[in-house]
């Protein structure tokens, strides 16, 4: 990938990935899902999850799975609101840049 993924975009992608599972999802799966979209090293994802959790955008809970506890991440209402804002912002941002590239005049 030529373009860097900034902190806000990474937050947005992680929130979006987590939001796909109503029931919540867990670290390994989040990593795999994020990596389907962008190339990111695994070591960068844990700090993002932890920060989003501290910012109250994600909530965690443990659920028994195969004889051990697995930690699940789930969007909070604040996280959902944040994701909406990110995606709105993304639409406007990407639209402007696409328009610039295609030589279209911005309204």
């Amino acid at each position, binding site marked *: 990938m030529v373009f860097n993924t900034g902190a806000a975009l990474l937050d947005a992608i992680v929130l979006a990935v987590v939001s796909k599972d109503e029931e919540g999802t867990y670290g390994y799966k989040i990593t795999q899902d994020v990596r389907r979209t962008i190339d990111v090293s695994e070591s960068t994802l*844990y*700090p993002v999850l*932890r920060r989003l959790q501290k*910012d*109250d955008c994600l909530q965690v809970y443990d659920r028994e799975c195969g004889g051990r506890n697995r*930690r699940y991440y789930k969007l909070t209402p604040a996280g959902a*609101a944040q994701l909406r804002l990110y995606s709105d*912002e993304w639409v406007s941002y990407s639209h402007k840049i696409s328009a610039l590239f295609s030589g279209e005049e911005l309204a």
Partner: protein
Amino acid sequence: MNKETFLIQLEKMLYDIPKEERDEAMDYYRSYFDDAGVENEALVIEELESPQAIAASIKEGLNAGGDMSAFLKNPPQVREETAQSGTYKNGKQQNPDSSPADSPFGSSAYASGSYQGASAGAGASGSFQNGASGAGASGSFQNGASGAGASGSFQNGASGAGTSGGTFYRRYNESENKYHKGAGRTMDKTAKIILIIILAICTLPVWGGIFSVALGIAGTVIAAVLVLGICSVVFLIGGIICAVVGILRLCTLSLVYGLLTFGTGLLLVAGSGISFVLLFLLCGRLLPWAVRTGIELCRRLFQFVGRSMA
């Protein structure tokens, strides 16, 4: 490297972050391995790069999280300016057509409201008062083009009001968290200082004992150095004198006495050599090592105290 050595190394690398954070991270990566399955273990280890890389990114994340203060400085200022410049009223009138801005920002006002309650008189609440009238502020972002320079990054055209509201919301949450944590931490810190002082007083006899032992060891070492130094000098001088006398005796043909004295002289020189080597080892190796160890020990102790205070 396998999973266990990887995790053990990671835990070691994280020794200097709070226990809560360390446990959390260890849980996460342990689960990560478990979820990946034994068959993917080698692949996961490769993907994770190294325990060093993971530890570095965790620490970086923690530092970034704790360093939001610079990030936080802007919004209240912006708010103050918009409130002062009287765009507040315009904003309010225009607000009905910026309904998307209302929900996030409304809740923002809510959040800052609870913030005020939580830490009344924290100084910063003045700017939050302006913030509480959030609807006005978000409205003013529509006029944003003419707005204060500081709000530059928030002027985003049509969707601008909504987005900036959201950014604020997020930041307020952060600020709220931060202030809460801040208050807790100062409390914690005072308690810890008192605890440490009490502990220090209670363990005074122990410290006295340790100090005496250290003093004793130091005394012994100094005495040993002195004795060895004196021995090597005296033996050397004595040895040379004996050897010279022995040779003189040999010259006067007193064979037995001559050889005996000469031999004694050589033995004394050898003794001096041994003392000298011992002295060299003591001063050159043992002492620097002892000093280094002592300093390291003190450093760790202070670090530990410092960390438990932080």
